[in-house]
């Protein structure tokens, strides 16, 4: 399969772009939805083939091309983006059938939605295999324009507010990041590295030792601070709860489960390559700072009675904090935790957002207030919400229970016991907040009369079964991963 990697690396981002164009040629809504299903399956299949190839190589050195790099981390992130993208595309027809008003005319709204969705998915799939820092930045910036349109798709005042805030704040953040990249290019040119190739991940790693410390530190801080805005790390997370709560549910799933961790991967690669030049402790401390701040800021909101999607948004803030901590600690145990956390969070969070589709269809007011006693009104929706929130809270046997333990153990292994203790406290408080939401929102007394499950709830039941099985498989993987060659290679930052 390795010989197919150059082809797959080109096909994986190109295929969804082609699909975005092809979907514009359809004439009926049913035809558009049918082509969407075929396009989604083809895109996910190509991405999963590349992910499987990358993961099958275990701890082997990464594969490089002119513009791509395929390593173990690429495999993990590609798999998550492929699965979440596939499910988001498959659940989109249900959203579009129930969507009332839209930014676009009724005749073209489906075409605009799918064009933006597939362009967004294409850019997301390209980020983990981008072999160059500047290229990765360009792709992350490209996700902004496409996803902003999707966030504001309904055209409501709140959706416009969320989309505008997201567009402006993340563009400014990425401008700061680009400033850091230019400063880094300046530092590289002073040591003989010029052109696009100087910013290749492997070239950066090789030239890092010869870079001037002060300029590289400034570049690193600027790049990380800018990316933090897009990842949604506190204190630069203001757009996150609004965008996640106002976007169509399939898009919220992509934003939370795929976009945030994918940008975190770029930050992780920056740390892995520039560690030597900025001194590993400084780089790690910055990640730990963002991680701890995100955990602590999220907790009060997880305790509040919030609308379902808004609660999930604050949970994203908490979980991106865990990812930042794991990368900051950087030990093999912590990195194993990060890998499982990205995959587990992706599945659990996406399921939570998909559950919002039947929830909001049966009770549109749930967009403005916390749900109550969903079990009494819809068992399939309640099951999806229960599995999602139980997993996100870290309730055993959730893979996030294992991954959080691994990250905390990694912190102790790195000598950051106090940080690990504070993080454990914040995670415990977050768990109690989510447990409260589970008891009140899902199991507690209903504020509506019970009704029989309708046929339209079967898809969420199927998704719950599939994602539940996936989560259990990740729990097993979380137990087996520490100590593997795959994790050791990632922890060493081999690119």
């Amino acid at each position, binding site marked *: 399969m390795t010989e197919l990697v150059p082809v797959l690396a080109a096909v994986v981002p190109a295929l969804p772009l082609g699909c975005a164009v092809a979907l514009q040629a359809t004439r009926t809504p049913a035809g558009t939805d049918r082509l969407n299903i075929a396009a989604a399956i083809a895109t996910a299949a190509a991405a999963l083939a590349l992910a499987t190839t990358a993961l099958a190589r275990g701890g082997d050195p990464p594969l490089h091309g002119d513009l791509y790099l395929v390593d173990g981390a690429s495999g993990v992130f590609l798999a998550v983006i492929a699965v979440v993208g596939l499910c988001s595309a498959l659940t989109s027809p249900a959203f579009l059938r129930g969507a009332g008003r839209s930014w676009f005319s009724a005749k073209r709204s489906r075409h605009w939605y799918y064009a933006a969705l597939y362009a967004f998915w294409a850019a997301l799939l390209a980020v983990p295999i981008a072999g160059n820092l500047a290229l990765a930045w360009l792709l992350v910036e490209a996700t902004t324009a496409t996803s902003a349109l999707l966030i504001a798709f309904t055209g409501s*005042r709140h959706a416009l507010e969320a989309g505008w805030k997201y567009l402006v704040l993340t563009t400014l953040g990425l401008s700061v990041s680009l400033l850091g990249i230019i400063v880094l290019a300046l530092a590289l*040119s002073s040591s003989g590295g010029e052109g696009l190739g100087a910013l290749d991940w492997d070239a950066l790693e090789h030239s890092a030792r010869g870079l001037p410390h002060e300029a590289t530190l400034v570049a690193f801080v600027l790049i990380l601070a800018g990316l933090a805005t897009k990842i949604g790390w506190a204190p630069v997370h203001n757009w996150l709860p609004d965008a996640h709560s106002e976007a169509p549910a399939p898009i919220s799933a992509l934003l939370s489960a795929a976009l945030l961790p994918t940008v975190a991967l770029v930050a992780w690669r920056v740390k892995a390559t520039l560690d030597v030049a900025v001194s590993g402790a400084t780089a790690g401390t910055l990640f730990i700072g963002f991680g701890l701040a995100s955990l602590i800021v999220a907790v009060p909101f997880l305790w509040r009675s919030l609308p379902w999607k808004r609660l999930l948004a604050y949970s994203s803030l908490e979980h991106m904090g865990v990812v930042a901590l794991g990368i900051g600690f950087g030990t093999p145990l912590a990195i194993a935790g990060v890998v499982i956390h990205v995959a587990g969070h992706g599945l659990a969070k996406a399921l939570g957002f998909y559950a919002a589709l039947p929830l909001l269809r049966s009770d549109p007011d749930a967009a403005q207030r916390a749900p109550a006693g969903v079990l009494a009104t819809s068992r399939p929706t309640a099951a999806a919400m229960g599995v999602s929130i139980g997993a996100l809270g870290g309730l055993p046997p959730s893979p996030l229970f294992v991954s959080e333990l691994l990250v905390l153990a990694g912190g102790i292994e790195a000598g950051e016991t106090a940080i690990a203790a504070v993080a454990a406290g914040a995670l415990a408080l977050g768990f109690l907040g989510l447990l409260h939401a589970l008891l009140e929102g899902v199991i507690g007394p209903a504020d509506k009369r019970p009704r029989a499950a309708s046929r339209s709830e079967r898809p969420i039941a199927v998704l719950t079964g599939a994602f539940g099985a996936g989560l259990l498989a990740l729990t097993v993987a979380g137990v087996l991963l520490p100590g593997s060659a795959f994790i050791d290679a990632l922890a060493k930052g081999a690119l």
Partner: protein
Amino acid sequence: MSGALVTVILLCGLGVIVVRRRSAAIALVAAQSLALGAGALGLASGRSSDFLVASVVLLAKAVALPALLLVVMRRTREPRLVAPAAPALARLAGAGAVAFAAVALVPPLGLGDAHTEHTAVALVLVGIAIVVARRPAFLQLIGLIVAENGLSLLAVSVPGGLSYVVELGALFDLALVVTVALAFTQRIHLELGTGDTELLRGLRD
């Protein structure tokens, strides 16, 4: 790039934070972008042909983006001038203070031309200050362009130039973001009857 041209680029950015009329802001950002494009063309001799292409594209952007802004401005007529969040002098003083603080704090970046380095960093921060201090969505968008011009100033000043792939890619991304932002501006105007983002404050916890 000559020190005078760099100063003009900075003054145009500072002007955007002061002016009240959108047409004046467009004129300032157009002048800033043209000065930047002209400065880049001046640096092109002795550099690669890729840099020349990037400079021409930068100049084309200086014409295309203001034209696009003008079209959208005419489609989104404000019934009256949006009340400023703070007096012009206060806005200017705030942006100036942030820019001076950053210039004082950021160590030499290695360009060897402190004036250009300071101006580029200051422009990025002035752009951020415009977004924070101006209420109309249209002027916030111009703030984004000012910040991007600061980045372009630094990028073209890198010895040998930043890779043209990065420069052209960043310009393409900017064009994409500006196009989407202009679509937002029109939609916000349609929804609210004005581009005043102060009215978009319904999402709070």
